[in-house]
């Protein structure tokens, strides 16, 4: 009977409209640059392969077979076998789970923490901004691999510690990315209007500024996911990855490197796996970034 046409939208409806706006922005970016679709497709394929590794892997990744040591690729073992006779293809499929888990967790947390820091610094400005961003710049100046290496070496190599180390190196860039658009958005009319209506800082930041800067942050997230996967593999190659016998791509290349003179495929196939994932993510993020903000082209 009573029509609530003038009643404010419910919280759920508001959230839906915000998500739709973010999704719409991303979709427009995707369509502006078709290579992003290719990147996304390849990446999703890798995610599916990793998810279903227990089902599709032809062998147990940890099953040793002394009689089948260092065999070249064959019908039985498509990518050959390693020093312990383990199936390389199965180990690559299982290794994808480790790379993706560490990468997604690290970048997910860096994205949340970094965005928060950047938004607070940008929104409040003044001394908070100067001090916070100075600290971020100093952290940013440090080579991320070296920082990651030392943190993992001190904490010990485990999935959780690798996530912490990689997240630590990725927080400053997200803070920077979130800060600039926050400063640009905070003086726009709709934020002024919100302030006039007596909205709290929290409500303005999370309800009104965040949706506006979210597409940019998500795009940087895909590029940093590529970096995170590269850093995780590099740490594993150095010997600071998740401990053996767990299959990790970097660890497999490290083992393959020891037998490189007679069994080159051991290092080759996991190398290709890393390259495919990192390239796909870069293709995805790079295309989207060009579409979202042409001025950002070329900045990492």
């Amino acid at each position, binding site marked *: 009977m009573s029509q609530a046409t003038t009643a404010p939208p419910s919280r759920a409806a508001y959230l839906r409209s915000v998500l739709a706006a973010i999704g719409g922005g991303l979709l427009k970016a995707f369509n502006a640059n078709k290579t992003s679709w290719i990147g996304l497709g390849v990446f999703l394929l890798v995610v599916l392969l990793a998810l279903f590794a227990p089902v599709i892997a032809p062998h147990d990744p940890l099953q040793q077979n002394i009689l089948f040591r260092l065999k070249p690729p064959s019908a039985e073992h498509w990518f050959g076998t390693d020093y312990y006779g383990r199936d390389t293809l199965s180990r690559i499929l299982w290794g994808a789970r480790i790379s993706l888990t560490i990468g997604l967790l690290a970048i997910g947390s860096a994205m949340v923490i970094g965005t928060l820091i950047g938004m607070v610094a940008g929104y409040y400005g003044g001394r908070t901004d100067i001090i916070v961003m100075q600290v971020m710049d100093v952290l940013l*100046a440090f080579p991320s*691999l070296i920082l990651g290496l030392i943190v993992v070496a001190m904490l010990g190599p485990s999935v959780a510690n690798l996530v912490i180390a990689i997240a630590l190196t990725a927080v400053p860039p997200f803070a920077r990315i979130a800060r600039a658009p926050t400063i640009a958005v905070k003086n726009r009319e709709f934020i002024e209007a919100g302030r006039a209506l007596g909205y709290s800082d929290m409500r303005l930041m999370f309800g009104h500024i965040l949706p506006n800067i979210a597409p940019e942050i998500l795009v940087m997230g895909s590029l940093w996911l590529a970096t995170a996967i590269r850093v995780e593999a590099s740490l594993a*190659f*150095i010997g600071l990855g998740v401990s053996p016998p767990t299959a990790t791509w970097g660890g497999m*290349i490290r083992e393959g490197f020891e037998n490189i003179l007679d069994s080159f495929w051991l290092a080759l196939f996991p*190398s290709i796996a890393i390259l495919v994932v*990192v390239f796909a993510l*870069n293709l995805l993020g790079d295309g989207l970034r060009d579409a979202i903000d042409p001025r950002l082209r*070329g*900045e990492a």
Partner: protein
Amino acid sequence: MTAFVLKRLGFAVVTLFAVLTIVFFIVRVLPGDPAVAILGDQANEQALAALRARLGLDQPLYVQYVEFLGGVIVGDWGVSMVSGRPVIQEILKVLPATLELTFVSLLLGALFGIPLGVWSAVRRNRLPDYITRMASLLGLSFPAFVSAVLLLLVFAIQLRWFPVISSGQGTTLGERLRDLALPAINLGLIMAAYITRVARSAMLEVLNQDYVRTAYAKGLAFATIIWRHCLRNAMIPVVTVVGLYLGILIGNSVLTEIVFNRPGLGKLIIGALNQRDYTMLQGMMVIYTLIVVLVNLLTDLTYGLIDPRIKYA
């Protein structure tokens, strides 16, 4: 000019101080007792206490901090837990090899990256541009150890053009270059990928400027416009980004040195990690910090050389 240099110098000193403070606290705030890390879980309390005293870990934190800063300034970076030699000596012994590698790689990167980026920008949205963009994106997708392993497989093992292990000890120029070739090409290609992309976007920006249109309108030769009028203006972002990417280059040089078994900071830090050489690790962080701060300073000063307007800013 003097005021500009002094201002930048002051900023570098402040940054250095801040980073050293962070290094100090990272090493101490992280969980895990360095004494236990060095001696192992089984070590008895007496030995642990003795080691803590030797490392100065039994002192209050502010005393340790002041001693650490003072030590860094006067060049006393402690003694390696493994070799017993001063940390600074060990670092200075291998530093030239790493600097040689990074410098040559940077040069290679610029030599290939800048012309490629310019070419790509001039041919925007045509085939050469697409190919260059894809190739550079692929280049920066390579983890340095993956490309190193692939280069090693092809050029050292299959074709035998270069040594598998680069000793870095060659005495003649020819030997040194042969040793340096593959590691430098590896880092140089990745660097070129980054530089190509920045050079391209910087050139695109400049090509749209009014003064470039004026230059065309008054009939200047195409090459003159590109190389004299555009490139110099496009170089500022390129130099900035090269400075920023030095961190990536340093990280990648660690991986490259391991794959090619080349002496340098990379091998030193891995050795220190494996042997839990706590003082050496701290020293390594100090030297990396020094390098990064110094490069940032040089980057800032280079702007002044490229762009005369900045000197008076």
